[in-house]
């Protein structure tokens, strides 16, 4: 039979393997649940059903579309092909303005209505989110 040391080592290797598999499984599982997908207004039009998951919508803020009240801000995100209405109550980054790029995170109510929970801050005026750039180039 195998010695005690070999048995112990075998047990140890097994333990390490199990933990490794378990942690990889755990990571991938929660990755699947917590990932936020990015979509452009046009892509949203093509959706077959409205999911309840959190998504990001990006594009340009349409000119003269911002209206603000005490509780909320409404605006329209466009990729010059399709647009989507957004309502938002929360902090607006400084570089948020009409005719500039924007990425909003939140939930779809239907294909033309989006409830944002967060508008992402941009760091400089020339910056355009790569997703927005790609979405604009696609048209």
């Amino acid at each position: 039979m195998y010695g005690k040391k070999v048995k112990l080592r075998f047990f140890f290797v097994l333990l390490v393997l199990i933990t490794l598999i378990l942690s990889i499984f755990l990571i991938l599982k929660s990755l699947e649940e917590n990932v936020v997908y990015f979509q452009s207004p046009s892509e949203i039009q093509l959706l077959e059903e409205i999911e309840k998951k959190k998504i990001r919508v990006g594009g340009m803020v349409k000119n003269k579309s911002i209206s603000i009240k005490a509780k909320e801000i409404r605006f329209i995100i466009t990729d010059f092909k399709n647009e989507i209405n957004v309502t938002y109550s929360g902090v607006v980054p400084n570089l948020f303005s009409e005719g500039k790029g924007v990425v909003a995170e939140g939930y779809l109510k239907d294909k033309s209505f989006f409830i944002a929970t967060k508008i992402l801050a941009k760091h400089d005026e020339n910056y355009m989110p790569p997703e927005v750039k790609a979405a604009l180039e696609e048209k």
Partner: protein
Amino acid sequence: MIFDNKIVTFTFLQFFFVIISFLGLIMSFVNSDFSNETVFNHSHTTKPLFYKISGTWGNHEGSLLLWLLVLTLFIFLFLIKSKDQTKQYRILTLLFQQIIIIGFFTFLIKTSNPFNYIFPIPNEGLGLNPILQDPALAIHPPILYLGYVGSSIIFSSTLAATTLNYISKEWAKHIKQWVLVSWIFLTIGILLGSIWAYYELGWGGFWFWDPVENVSLMPWLALTTLLHCILVLEKRLTLTSWVVVLSISTFTLSMCGTFLVRSGILNSVHTFANDPERGLFILIFLFCLIFMSLFIFFFFHKVKNKDSNSFFWLSKETSILINNWFMMYFLAVVLIGTIYPIFLEVISSEKISVGPPFYNKLIIPFLIPFLFAMAIGPKLNWIKSELENKTYLVLFLILSLLVSVFTIKNLNVNFLINTVLVTSAFYLFFITLRDFFTKKFKNLSQNIAHFGFSLLILSILFNNIFSTEIITNLKIGETYEGAEFKINFEKIEQKNEKNFKAIIGKFNIENSNGTIENLRPELRIYNQPNIVTSEADIKTNLLKDSFITMNLVQNQDYFNIRYQIKPFMIWIWFSVLLITLGGLKSLILNKRYEK
């Protein structure tokens, strides 16, 4: 004598020339010499002198020159400090370090020369991104670089030691100094970045699990684990493979960070230019280094002293090993969360982002055993330990359980997970606190650092649990009336500064118990480049921060107001300083032993 041989003299010359060119670049920034492309792109005559200087490393080219400067500085210091080591080892370390230096030097010359000339000479520069014009962020890059690049010397000397089969207790003692230096700078660098994000970005948080933050956290995790392994190596000459692998991964992760932020794959304030060529160069160089180090690790690394490798289940070695595995797990989580989106985009062109819930869910539960192991581990002996005279460990467990149950009981949060979490943090807190009185000065640095860590976790937990926030849109003169606060937007004032105009809002905030606070957040409109930033106004005291920011929405008369109460903020900063202090103590104390 310092210059006792040619090699040291040449290394000094190398360092000397790099510092000359770095000082030259600083001078061009100070004098606003716009014939230099880097200066033209990132400076402006109306900028205050301090930010002209910090603008030197506030851009891609300059920061790479700084990177090169630190590389040469560290190898020079290493040669001076390692006189008692063998000649072969020192030369081989120098060789590996020079490979890195040559790589970065070529990179600098080929893709990002800081001294490009423009003609005709422009009259005015384009200016520095205003959110970088801040004291904390001005010193953040040099400090962080000392940590990042400092790990290069650990990388080089570990490779040298592996090749020569030089790893010993004495070597561990000698390399520990370098690990500590780089760890201290990295910790402070991350702290500065975090403080800056807290007050400048206006979101009121200090950690966002943003990819750029993650790339600094990954080397930190590897370096912290390495530090603990070195301690084991110094005492017991085991875990050598851990030390080698961690030394390699620390520097590789630092390089990875550089690659990710410089190549424009991650977008953030650190992405100075989107130049695929730069990314490609770093990537190739990175692969060469990884390949070289893995080759050395597999072919030269020999595990020695078989007999001292054995230790029993209940021992200090085991507890350090357990925590190593936890650290590796945290590292894996952060790594996957950071690179998975990039990976997915390349293979399926689907764009995703991974947010805080992912990290919270995967890291927080594992903090509990991690904290317990951190509390109990230092209590165990090397090799084999008995659980005699350790009843106080149980007593403290009951105490911390009681304390946390009483704290959590009346709060509107998930009872079970929060109680267990707070218990484990309090447990570490009490145990380390007790040690300050019973152990006196034995192992003081470890004690300070672990105490700091428990304080950090506690502050973060309570900060999360007790934070309140009000977001509203107000016109001038209006008052927001909530259940707990009344926010009165009294008026705005204008002020003209040298390089920006400021709109200062005056807010009176009335608490439910009648106390009134005056807060004055600012909006700054910078002239070059034309950017609006908001400056939060923060009132700090020992128990809480009151934090207010305002933003103006284009062409509207509403101001977007965010008011937050953030408890124990100052304790988060303070506890990180305590952790650093632990490292500093160990560094200075060891120096004294040497003499």
